[in-house]
């Protein structure tokens, strides 16, 4: 069986999702036999941007060097997977978007030219075409493992688009909105974390990102009113959505 050629890249992020790549190989040690890795600086010394079957990219794009790298990666990869909330939506660093970089941030550097960041924090798919999106902060390691196993076997991923609420229902977790009267972002958030926060008795804060296939501008407005009544201000909701769903939120806003 020909080995699946994989490359793993990190852009701007905390590296937490890279650990899920390592995890997926731990729980499926046989993957190491069917996968060859040409780029993964966290794990190996020799790395080259070569032609690969799948490039896994963690992190958001925050400068032109990263844009160039991502374009090169896209050229040389048959498939590109955006790994984690940073790559899919921009990630928590998106909270700085909208501020004037030159006056607020770069002012603190003795040599501002050394820091190369753009005003925007971009998701991977706003720079190149992306084949798979695996959101999550961090991504669910099991989902990543499933994708890798499928690709090794020559299959592909069939994405499921449902909101977090369905996971609570399926698991029989009492609704925090109903039971505790606490705000919960579950209704507008992509499923796949296993309804983690509600299972610990707290509301979801949306780290798997906005379920953009279900949520449109009108529904988001309706949802804002609901959580406002539960004590979460519009500004605070907006900050959470910006932190974990920046790219989707921008698209919704520009959709008019």
């Amino acid at each position, binding site marked *: 069986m020909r080995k699946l050629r994989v490359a793993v890249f990190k852009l701007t*992020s905390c590296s937490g999702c890279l*650990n899920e790549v*390592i*995890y997926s190989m731990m729980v499926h040690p046989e993957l190491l036999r069917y996968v060859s*890795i040409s780029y993964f600086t966290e794990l190996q010394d020799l790395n080259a941007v070569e032609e690969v079957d799948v490039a896994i990219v963690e992190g958001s794009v925050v400068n032109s060097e990263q844009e160039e790298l991502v374009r090169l990666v896209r050229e040389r990869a048959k498939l590109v997977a955006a790994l984690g909330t940073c790559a899919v939506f921009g990630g928590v660093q998106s909270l700085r978007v909208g501020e004037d970089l030159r006056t*607020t*941030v770069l002012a603190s550097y003795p040599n501002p030219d050394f820091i190369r960041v753009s005003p925007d924090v971009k998701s991977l798919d706003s720079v190149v075409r992306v084949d798979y999106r695996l959101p999550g902060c961090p991504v669910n390691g099991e989902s990543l493992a499933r994708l890798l196993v499928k690709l090794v076997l020559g299959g592909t991923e069939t994405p499921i688009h449902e909101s977090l609420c369905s996971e609570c229902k399926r698991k029989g977790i009492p609704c925090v909105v109903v039971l505790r009267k606490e705000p919960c972002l579950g209704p507008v958030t992509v499923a796949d974390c296993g309804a983690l926060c509600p299972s610990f008795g707290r509301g979801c804060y949306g780290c798997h990102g906005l379920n953009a296939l279900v949520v449109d501008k009108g529904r988001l407005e309706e949802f804002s009113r609901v959580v406002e009544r539960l004590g979460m201000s519009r500004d605070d909701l907006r900050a959470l959505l910006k932190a974990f769903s920046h790219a989707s939120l921008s698209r919704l806003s520009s959709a008019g």
Partner: protein
Amino acid sequence: MLSGLLTRVEGEGQVVLKSAGGKVAGVEVRITEAPRFFEYIVGGRRYSEVPDLTSRICGLCGVSYMLTAAKAFEKCLSVEVPEDEERLRLAILAAERVKSHAIHVVYLHLPDFLELGSLSELAESYSHILRRGMEIALWARKAMEVMGGRFHNVVNVRVGGVYSFPEASKVAKLRQELPRVLEGFLDVARFVMGLGNIPGEAHRLRYMAVRDGDTYPWVGSGVITDDGSYAGADAFESFVLTEQVGYSNALRYRLPTGEPYVVGPLARYNLYSGRLRREVRKFLEEYGYGGPLKNVYQSVVARIAEIYQTLLELQEFFDEYREKSVARAEPASAVRGPCVAVTEAPRGILYHRYALDGELRVRSCNIITPTAQNLASMEEVIMSGLTGVDADARAVEVAKGIVRSYDPCISCSVHVVPAGCTPDA
């Protein structure tokens, strides 16, 4: 000028050797990772949201970032954390230390002692050790999932305590699996220590760790150095000297004397080895380690000692564990005193300071990370060994090996504080 991309470390960095007449004359450990401006992005957020945000600073040690933030707010908002909830939080922190050290010892650092360059090579030749290492990491992962919800960005730490107690049956299962994990750990530890090639010549090293009550250190009232100097948490920023260099995206720190210092397992071990359990000390003595560690490569010994110590501490926690209902302690509505805290993250002292406004939203913030504190020491140790030697690819490899011994966490260290966000005003 010769440079090498830092591999087998978390994040993006570079070591640059400067040469004069073909010999090494200078070094720059560059942190090239693009900043994410955390001090800026927590601005305006309510105190209660901050731990979930600071967790995102680090994919390897997020619990430390959450807990330090929570503790800073608990201090200034006079929150009394119930003892059982505090013990649970410290157990999550302990599981994180095991996870972080196990990953470094087995996956990132061991290839250096075996002169291999990658995990795949390790898997080919030493699959049994890798499997044992995996079992430790996977068990630590399960412990974090049971107690915190997931492997990182755990969801069970809040300002005031925890959100819920894990089911006693799940904790009991972790406890049941522990003997096997300990056995596997000892296999790995014996293998690494038995290689007998951990360098021992003395480096010039100064150390600092938090001062904790009477346990091996986790959280503390302040910091203590190897010469016994103490600074309370609220005096930490004025105690250390802060510097900024043009080639790195991270601030760096020195002792009041201007000397670099080391934080992390080596510093904790050298300051607190007397508090390690008897079986841990006995194990180390079998391999000739009794006194202070003098070489940064010996950090691996300190990590092994800490994994052992921490697994034993967790065993005690599991044995005494009782499922409780959470108290949901609520903070005072007004700020009293500074919101500061220091804890021991896996890589060393982690300092958080916040200022809150009248609505208890963050007005300013400063976070000092372990790796940023180690940067000056890395350069000093590299120069002590490489000054005047041929500036070639081999020298670059030696320099990279030294940096890797510190287990740098580069994503975390990228913390240039934006203007207007530093002073308490």
